[in-house]
């Protein structure tokens, strides 16, 4: 660790991993409700479990991004973070907000109160006071990081990371605008939900991936930067108007069907480019970095993001297809693999790379960490397939044959059981991963190469 203030990242990563565990517990419970629908239906209804699962995902990913920024910005700018105290204050605000959200959701406190009650818009259900807290925390973060950047060396990696984080914070402001007209409500709602994950988050993803490739493969910065610019250009070119793929059936004019179909088809391009980038860098790189686990997560991230976001996204993005598949389990399949590949794996890659450095030691527990990668990724892939099959059957029975929603759900039971099984595998993988990152132990398999006698 070259800069003392990089240590801030450790607190963010620890908080992120704790909330990750909560998210997976929520996911397991939600998966169980699919096979035993009356579980906790009075105490903790499914819609609340689902809210906890999705909200905690976003919160821990954001904490991971903030942590990643605090870790890599000092190195890129060659400066200490402007104010470590503000960085910890920001974390405290975010954690208090998270706690407030969980308590408000679970006990359904302050129902209907404009300031304290939950707002009810999917994914941005947070009470207004928490939203204000998020904005304050974001402002602190942007101030702190931007001041650091302005004082120090400016690189493409840190510039694009900061651009992405600024975009993330500014787009969140649409959470405060809630028009009465439901079509308009949804139209602006997607400015957050879509323009985050298919816009500015891709900038964050590309820059963190570029940083990891720079460190892990030793390829020239100049080469990495050229790729980075191309990826970012492709992401924004396709992603911004690609928002149109959410405007097919919400009451927006019909030309969105063509704008959305054409531009969002091109959203595959940046994800393909990121995958190509990662593999080409490893191919060209001369450095044999000891942190193999971080490299595995980086390559896994680029590959699974291409399949989850790119291929599974394209699967149902054309409006002629989406007319039938909209809101079925096909969407759930895409959502799970896309978030896992693009953003979960990315965060774990930077955690795996940074944690040993932050704790001042050589890479540790790599075998366990890599086993966790395969268990988690295998589980997520299996879940994606079962949900895709469930969605295919559902689309046909419900949308083509026109059968009743709940009748069709009964027919999907087998898939939901398999999905629960894959969820258990993922949960075990997550426990292994958290253990591997948190508790340094001796390597299970010796890292010394086995060399044949010459």
């Amino acid at each position, binding site marked *: 660790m070259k800069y003392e203030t990089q240590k801030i990242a450790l607190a963010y990563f620890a908080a992120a991993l704790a909330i990750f565990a909560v998210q997976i517990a929520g996911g397991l419970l939600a998966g169980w409700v699919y096979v035993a629908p009356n579980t906790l239906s009075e105490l903790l209804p499914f819609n609340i479990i689902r809210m906890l699962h999705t909200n905690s995902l976003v919160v821990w990913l954001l904490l991971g991004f903030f942590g990643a920024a605090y870790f890599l910005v000092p190195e890129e700018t060659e400066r200490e973070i402007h104010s470590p105290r503000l960085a910890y204050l920001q974390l405290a605000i975010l954690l208090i907000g998270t706690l407030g959200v969980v308590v408000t959701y679970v006990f359904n406190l302050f129902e209907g109160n404009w300031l304290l009650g939950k707002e009810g818009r999917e994914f941005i259900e947070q009470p207004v006071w928490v939203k204000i807290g998020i904005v304050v925390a974001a402002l602190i973060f942007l101030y702190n990081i931007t001041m650091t950047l302005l004082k120090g060396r400016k690189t493409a990696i840190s510039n694009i990371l900061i651009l992405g984080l600024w975009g993330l914070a500014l787009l969140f402001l649409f959470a405060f605008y809630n028009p009465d007209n439901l079509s308009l409500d949804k139209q602006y709602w997607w400015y957050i939900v879509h323009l985050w994950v298919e816009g500015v988050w891709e900038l964050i993803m590309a820059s963190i991936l570029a940083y990891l490739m720079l460190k892990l493969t030793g390829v020239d910065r100049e*080469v990495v930067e050229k790729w980075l610019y*191309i990826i970012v250009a492709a992401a924004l*070119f*396709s992603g911004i108007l690609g928002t149109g793929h959410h405007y097919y059936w919400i009451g927006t*004019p*019909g030309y969105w069907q063509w*704008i959305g179909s*054409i531009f969002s088809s*091109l959203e595959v391009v940046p994800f393909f480019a990121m995958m190509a980038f990662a593999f080409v860098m490893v191919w060209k790189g001369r450095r044999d970095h000891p942190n193999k686990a971080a490299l595995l997560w980086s390559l896994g991230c680029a590959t699974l993001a291409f399949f989850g976001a790119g291929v599974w996204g394209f699967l149902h993005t054309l409006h002629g297809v989406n007319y039938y598949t909209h809101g079925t389990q096909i969407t759930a399949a895409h959502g799970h693999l896309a978030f896992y590949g693009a953003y979960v794996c990315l965060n774990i890659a930077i955690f795996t790379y940074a944690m040993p450095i932050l704790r001042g030691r050589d890479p540790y527990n790599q075998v366990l960490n890599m086993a966790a990668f395969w268990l988690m990724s295998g589980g997520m892939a299996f879940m994606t397939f079962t949900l895709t099959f469930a969605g295919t059957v559902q689309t046909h029975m419900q949308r083509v044959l026109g059968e009743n929603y709940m009748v069709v759900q009964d027919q999907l039971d087998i898939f939901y059981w398999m999905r629960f099984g894959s969820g258990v595998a993922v949960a075990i993988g997550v426990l292994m991963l958290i253990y591997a990152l948190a508790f340094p132990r001796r390597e299970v398999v010796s890292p010394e190469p086995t060399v044949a006698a010459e």
Partner: protein
Amino acid sequence: MSDASVFDELPGDLMIWVLIVSELLVFGAGLAAFLAVRITDPAGFAAAQDALYRTGAGVNTMVLVTSGALAAWALRLCEAGRRMRARAALAAAAALGVVFMVVKVREYAGKAAEGIAWDTHPFFTFYYLLTGFHAAHVVAGVIVLLLVAWKDAVPNIEAGTAFWHMVDLVWVLLFPVIYLLR
């Protein structure tokens, strides 16, 4: 590690070519979709096409191609060190872009007066999307041409004219497919 590649030989910056390829993919996909939907209703598409003002579009084709030639000429002039003439050629190219837009706006105004909107027929959905999206690029191109006339380094002019050629190339594809194809 040196990383000389064929991309380094591209005129202008690599990024302008990333943009050009992306634009061509979008317009290509739009035209392909137009032709695919046309198969479902050839008679309706032909009838709708008759409402278009073909002569104006023909004139606009000449205007835009001439403008492209001026922009290309400007690059040669600049490379030969004749700075002021190069700038004049770029300004003339931009002016022709403005002429294109004047004709285009009159065309749209005529459609509006006849009560033809984007949802009158699927033909017009594509007509407005494709020509409207193209017209937005003409406006952007005029600004780019004026920018490179002001900051007239050779790589800038290369990038600006490459973008402008993309705009006239797209028009040369849109014109026959939307206005003429029977």
